[in-house]
């Protein structure tokens, strides 16, 4: 096992050579923390860490930082997601200190969906930094113990740094160079966009392996179960950067409506089983959007239960 750099439980599990399992919760569009804690309760024994999205799709929600604190107070392991769309570098560094002050040890660095998609399309956006520069910032704060401005940080944050990768976005030819770039920026774990086109993912992994990237970063494969054929079609046609092969959609449409959720789960579990065989995949990021109650079933039926106990 390679030495851990942070107290992160997720890091420990990955560095011990176990397959990690993470999942995500979307915070509520209101102030009731039970909306998060209830979801976390459902999945807590089946995942190693829980991501909290950050105003996903640019829709205003309870902030990731506060949600992560609720998770932490439950004794669980949060991953704070941070987008650069809504914060300048002062707020970014400040929020990192805030998260670290509550012993949140994992961060996922993202640019963020454009506000045109959300509930405030007339608002400003920030993008003082992009996701790569955010990765560099967290590493700088952790490893140099300094702010971007140069001053020393009192008790620097210790965070395990992650980012997203999308093997299915265009153009394909730079998706692996992009991974290499994020690694050069300092990223330590990656969660990919949800995978339906396993062939394409396998190709991306192959190209990554050719450059030895699979040994420089922990890649967690993203999966999302379809609840219905409608959902499959929606994701295929309306979500940018999503690749849903026609035969997967056909498989979903081919069963009667009441059987579709079951089929969606089956596809998800089969995908995980296939991905387990792909060299370089070090874990799974199960995104069961608004279907968190199925995460335990997915994890169990994929042979990923029980989760390893780490001290």
């Amino acid at each position: 096992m390679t030495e851990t750099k942070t107290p992160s439980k997720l890091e420990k599990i990955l560095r011990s050579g176990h397959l990690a399992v993470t999942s995500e919760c979307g915070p509520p569009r209101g102030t009731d923390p039970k909306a998060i804690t209830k979801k976390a309760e459902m999945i807590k024994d089946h995942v190693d860490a829980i991501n909290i999205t950050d105003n996903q799709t640019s829709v205003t929600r309870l902030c990731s930082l506060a949600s992560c604190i609720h998770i932490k107070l439950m004794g669980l392991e949060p991953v704070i997601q941070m987008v650069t769309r809504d914060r300048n570098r002062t707020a970014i560094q400040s929020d990192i200190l805030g998260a670290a002050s509550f012993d949140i040890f994992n961060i996922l660095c993202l640019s963020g969906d454009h506000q045109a998609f959300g509930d405030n399309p007339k608002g400003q956006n920030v993008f003082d930094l992009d996701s790569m520069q955010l990765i560099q910032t967290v590493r700088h704060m952790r490893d140099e113990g300094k702010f971007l401005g140069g001053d020393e940080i009192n008790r620097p944050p210790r965070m395990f740094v992650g980012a997203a990768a999308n093997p299915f976005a265009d153009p394909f030819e730079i998706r692996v160079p992009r991974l290499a770039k994020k690694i050069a920026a300092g990223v330590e774990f990656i969660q990919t966009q949800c995978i339906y086109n396993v062939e394409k993912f396998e190709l991306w992994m192959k190209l990554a392996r050719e450059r030895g990237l699979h040994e420089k970063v922990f890649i967690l494969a993203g999966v999302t179960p379809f609840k219905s054929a409608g959902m499959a079609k929606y994701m295929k046609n309306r979500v940018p950067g999503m690749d849903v092969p026609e035969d997967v959609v056909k498989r979903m449409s081919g069963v009667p409506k009441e059987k579709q959720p079951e089929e969606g789960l089956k596809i998800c579990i089969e995908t995980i089983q296939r991905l387990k065989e792909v060299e370089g995949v070090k874990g799974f990021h199960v995104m069961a959007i608004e279907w968190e109650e199925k995460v335990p079933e997915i994890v169990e039926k994929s042979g990923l239960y029980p989760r390893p106990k780490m001290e």
Partner: protein
Amino acid sequence: MIVAKQKDIEEIIEEVKDYNKILIAGCNECVTVCEAGGKKEVAVLASALRMYFMNQGKDVKIDEVTLERQCDHEYLEEIRKMIDQYDVVLSLACGVGVQFLAEKYISTPIVPGVDTCFMGVTEERGVWSERCQACGQCILARTAGICPVSRCAKRLFNGPCGGSTKGKCEIDKELDCAWQLIIDRLKELGRLDDYEQLTPIKDWSTERAGGPRKVVREDVRQ
């Protein structure tokens, strides 16, 4: 050039309806090229407003003038002798011209007739698009001549984001993804390896964020 779009006539009417002596001032440069505020546009607007007021039964004097530019003292001086005849000037110049007029002629209300949009190019007659946001530190040499600040909706310096689809931006299928363009150009120039160089964090202090900007050239000041 600066690209502008004429305001809706209803908005213009709202701005000038209480006045009786209107001077419509056009500009011979950028707004002429983007057909928003040149001599022709001044003439059409003047005619429309005359008819509007006639219809309202209101007697309004509407005159037309088109200056070479409205951002240099010398050209604005050309109307000094006549401006007192008017109780408002409707300027069809970009926001720069409107303001400069207002600074110079402090006792005459100056109202804008166009919305100033961006610095850009004429793709073809009738289609103008943005190219520059005046960030004050040009990096076009690194990005093969395509600007990520003005052409990427998220002004990413290490793009593209995961929403880039078939060379188009996630927010608009008609909008080219700037990073796709940059990658294509790097390929053409045989410099695709440059893609992996990390662009460092931007100094935005020379941009709007740093406050209103000024350029001073002591070597040419008199």
